[in-house]
């Protein structure tokens, strides 16, 4: 059947038509070979636009369609559906992206129109060679993997598990809970963070449909939507979880003291330790870097083992359940899941690199997370806000936007610092008699009840100074400044440079992507936005999915957010995963690799390069074969085949060469 092509040019309001002469492009398209009809329209994706395409298919008896509009990621499914409704195979369609690739990136109208014409010509030439393909459906594995056991991961896992589907909840730390477990109170309601989090942690730990894999890391992810295979490394805890009762006797015996990560280094812990009092699982583990016995073993010596043996002289027994196992090794397990929710969280900005704020250099300069521990009644000072020398501060400065809204560090607003700083101001007033000064750029109290909380803190007598401090120094210029930390700042409301001596400085550090964000992105094949966080499929209309089907995002790994937003997004991610599970089947791309058996020499190079294990070798015929259900159409084997025996349907050499010719002529 001779191709009869229709070309439809979209104005996208003024998005395209403002820069591209769409009528000229339509005139140009009419002159192309095999083009029967070409027209332009304000919004091709709208109902009338789609109707226009369907009508023309009938009227002009079209059998190929080209739409020149936005990115195929945006509307290819829309138009494929439209032409399918008009009776054509959806693969008799090609899209020319004249918005993202042309009008949005070019100001010159003439050049833009030229480029749009080239892309349209390329699409017309390509669609000429299109062939009908059938989309395939595969079953979805109803299990879900949730990566990260902070509040986002816990929430998503609980929602899914409550529907009766199995969840693997993986956390690289020895307990779930994440950053929220470290916080004191939560703004603006001042609920105790642990009080609202621990019930959820316990539920997640005891839920029959949640398999908790703490102190574990994802090693490898293979497969595709509905059918992922995941390798997980369970790191050695040197403790038999089945035997440990979490009694904590071993903690009293261990002679080692090292900085406690949970307390941000402000407190000390033992080498055999429980991450924190409410840890889930409520079991201990041994830190091999600091355990005297494990360090000794590496040198062939048998030392310490007091936690195991007890201290005979004092009559203190060791672990009575025999849970300690110095021989334990890392273990790798493999699980199969249909959906993955990535909820790996954030890292606090390290203010040490802002030299002038003195963090790590001057005493009594703290990060916000350190201050959370300092003010927490379960923290290292029992909730007393005290200086290094043990005395109570008379004056505390809180500096906002440390590492945020600053082109030198992070351009974005971290969205939580204003509110937690004001929470600190309230807590300081509650615990001490100190004066509190908040140094801000703008107060962003945008959430429900937030502005009211701001007013409350104002009324409590906290002083708000609009101006970002230039430095925190211990160099005194006047006798009053001796022995104090001095904040040098411009008070922008009165337009003057001022200095303020204080006893303690809290740096309201922003949130940034975790150190291993790049490796994690590669592991799950998801992309990152300019700020470094994981990128959602669409910033407004698909904020939870990623460009990789079956992988969803929740919480701060996608961008800074507070607890309410995190919980909402986590629930949304759970809903997305559940929607997939309850559908039971998923349609996957029809474009697969096809091996021409006559040309195949049986070298099996393609089998080696296939990332989805979709290629097998037929011993009888001595040729390779593609399992269409497993093939994702990535094209690795096409490039790998030395004999040109493999082609990728919908991406054949013929189609691609025609497309290039079209663009160049």
């Amino acid at each position, binding site marked *: 059947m001779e191709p009869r092509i229709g070309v439809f040019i979209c104005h996208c309001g003024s998005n395209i038509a403002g820069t591209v002469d769409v009528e000229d492009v339509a005139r140009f398209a009419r002159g192309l070979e095999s083009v029967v009809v070409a027209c332009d329209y304000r919004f091709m994706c709208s109902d009338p636009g789609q109707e226009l395409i369907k009508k023309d298919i009938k009227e002009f008896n079209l059998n190929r369609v080209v739409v020149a509009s936005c990115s195929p990621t945006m509307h290819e499914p829309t138009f494929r559906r439209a032409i399918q409704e008009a009776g054509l195979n959806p693969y008799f369609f090609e899209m020319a992206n004249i918005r993202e690739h042309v009008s949005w990136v070019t100001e010159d109208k003439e050049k833009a129109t030229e480029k749009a014409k080239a892309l349209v010509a390329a699409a017309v030439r390509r669609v000429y060679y299109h062939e009908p393909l059938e989309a395939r459906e595969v079953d979805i594995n109803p299990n879900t993997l949730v990566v990260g056991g902070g509040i986002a991961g816990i929430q998503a896992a609980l929602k899914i598990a409550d529907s009766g589907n199995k969840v693997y909840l993986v956390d690289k730390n020895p307990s779930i809970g994440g950053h929220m477990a470290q916080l004191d109170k939560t703004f603006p309601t001042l609920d105790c963070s642990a009080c609202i989090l621990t019930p959820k942690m316990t539920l997640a730990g005891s839920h029959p449909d949640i398999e908790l894999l703490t102190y574990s890391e994802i090693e490898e992810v293979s497969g595709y939507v509905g059918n992922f295979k995941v390798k997980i490394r369970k790191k050695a805890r040197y403790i038999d979880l089945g035997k440990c009762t979490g009694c904590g006797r071993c903690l009293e015996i261990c002679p080692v003291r090292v900085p406690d990560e949970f307390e941000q280094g402000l407190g000390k812990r033992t080498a055999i330790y429980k991450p924190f009092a409410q840890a889930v699982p409520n079991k201990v583990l041994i830190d091999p870097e600091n355990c005297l016995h494990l360090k000794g073993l590496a040198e062939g010596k048998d030392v310490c083992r007091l936690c195991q043996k007890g201290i005979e002289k004092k009559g203190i027994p060791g672990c009575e359940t025999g849970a300690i196992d110095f021989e334990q090794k890392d273990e790798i397990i493999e699980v199969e899941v249909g959906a993955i929710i990535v909820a790996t969280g954030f890292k606090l900005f390290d203010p040490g690199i*802002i*030299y*002038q704020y003195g963090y790590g250099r001057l005493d009594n300069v703290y990060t916000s997370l350190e201050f959370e521990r300092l003010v927490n009644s379960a923290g290292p000072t029992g909730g007393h806000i005290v200086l290094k020398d043990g005395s109570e501060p008379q004056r505390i400065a809180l500096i906002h936007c440390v590492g945020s809204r600053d082109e030198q560090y992070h351009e974005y607003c971290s969205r939580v610092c204003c509110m937690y700083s004001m929470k600190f101001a309230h807590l300081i007033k509650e615990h001490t008699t100190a004066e509190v000064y908040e140094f801000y750029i703008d107060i962003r109290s945008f959430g429900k009840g937030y502005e009211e909380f701001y007013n409350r803190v104002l009324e409590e007598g906290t002083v708000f100074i609009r101006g970002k401090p230039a*430095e925190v*120094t211990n*160099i005194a*210029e006047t006798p009053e400044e001796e022995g104090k930390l001095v904040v040098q700042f411009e008070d922008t409301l009165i337009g003057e440079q001022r200095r303020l001596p204080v006893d303690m400085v809290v740096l309201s550090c922003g949130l940034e992507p975790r150190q291993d964000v790049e490796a994690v992105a590669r592991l799950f094949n998801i992309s990152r936005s300019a700020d470094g966080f994981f990128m959602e499929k669409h910033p407004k209309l698909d904020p939870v999915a990623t460009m990789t089907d079956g992988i969803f995002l929740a919480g701060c790994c996608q961008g800074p957010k507070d607890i309410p937003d995190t919980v909402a997004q986590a629930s949304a991610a759970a809903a997305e995963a559940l929607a997939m599970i309850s559908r039971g089947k998923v349609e996957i791309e029809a474009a697969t690799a096809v091996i021409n058996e006559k040309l195949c020499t049986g070298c099996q190079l393609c089998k080696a390069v296939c990332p989805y294990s979709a290629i097998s070798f037929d011993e009888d015929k001595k040729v390779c074969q593609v399992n269409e259900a497993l093939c994702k159409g990535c094209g690795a084997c096409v490039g790998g085949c030395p004999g040109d025996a493999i082609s990728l349907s919908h991406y054949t050499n013929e189609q691609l060469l025609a497309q290039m010719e079209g663009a160049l002529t």
Partner: protein
Amino acid sequence: MRYYSYFPGCSAESTGLGLGLSTEAIAAPLDIELVELEDWNCCGSTPYGSLDDEESIVVAARNLALAEKSGFDLVTPCSSCYVTLAGANRHLQERPKLMTQVNEALAVAGLEYKGSIRVRHLVDVLYNDVTPEFIAGEVKNRLDGLKVAPYYGCQLVRPRYGLDDTEHPHTLDDLVECLGAEAVNFPMKARCCGGSLTISEEKNVLELTRKILQSAAQNGSQCIVTPCPLCQTNLDAYQSRINARFRADFKIPVLFITQLIGLALGLEAKSLGLDTNIVSPREVLDYIYNRINYVTTHPTEERE
């Protein structure tokens, strides 16, 4: 041998004569050739830019156009010239319209600037091209034990051209230490000295310079080094006025970094222009040549 176009700037031939002399003196031992721009003009400095931004860029661009003929990096030892020339260069490279306008003006003198050269500070060249390791190898007279306060001033590191950290720079410290001397802890090292405001706002400038001298003295330094002729003048020539105004007793020689390098390279003090320094560097020279240590010659507290 490395080649550079050399822009001494007005100061290096007048108030900062020591800078000009010592820069030229250390070039040969450090294997660099500074080819002075023929017929260079004043860079325009900060005052011109505050009156007419575009005209001031033409003034600077004339020097850039002259330098483009040889194609070498344009090096200046003066921080103020560096900021002015590098700033103009960046504006021209990033704004084609401005480049066209400026070239129209330059055409009157038969010149054209295409935007191809790099403007660099001498400290950048010493640190990144010559490198402290190489300088250390050329040192004839190690300055072991000499306590030096490396003073960057504001223009060398701010606005940012990527040479060094603006708040906590280290390049001068490294240059001082490669000579065997000790770079003292000097928190005020990147603070503004007041620059040319000594002329119009002397009171404020004296206050700023006092803090800098105080910080250097408190940390036991025997001298201050700086690459900037404006800073050097303020700290050196105005030291007696600071003493008079604040009833202090500062007696800290303020050397150019190039003078200190020259001393370590074994060059003669006079060839480095050390006789032009106002606060006598005699004690520093005695220490370097004769290891005579004048202990506690500097006040650590102000007199009441």
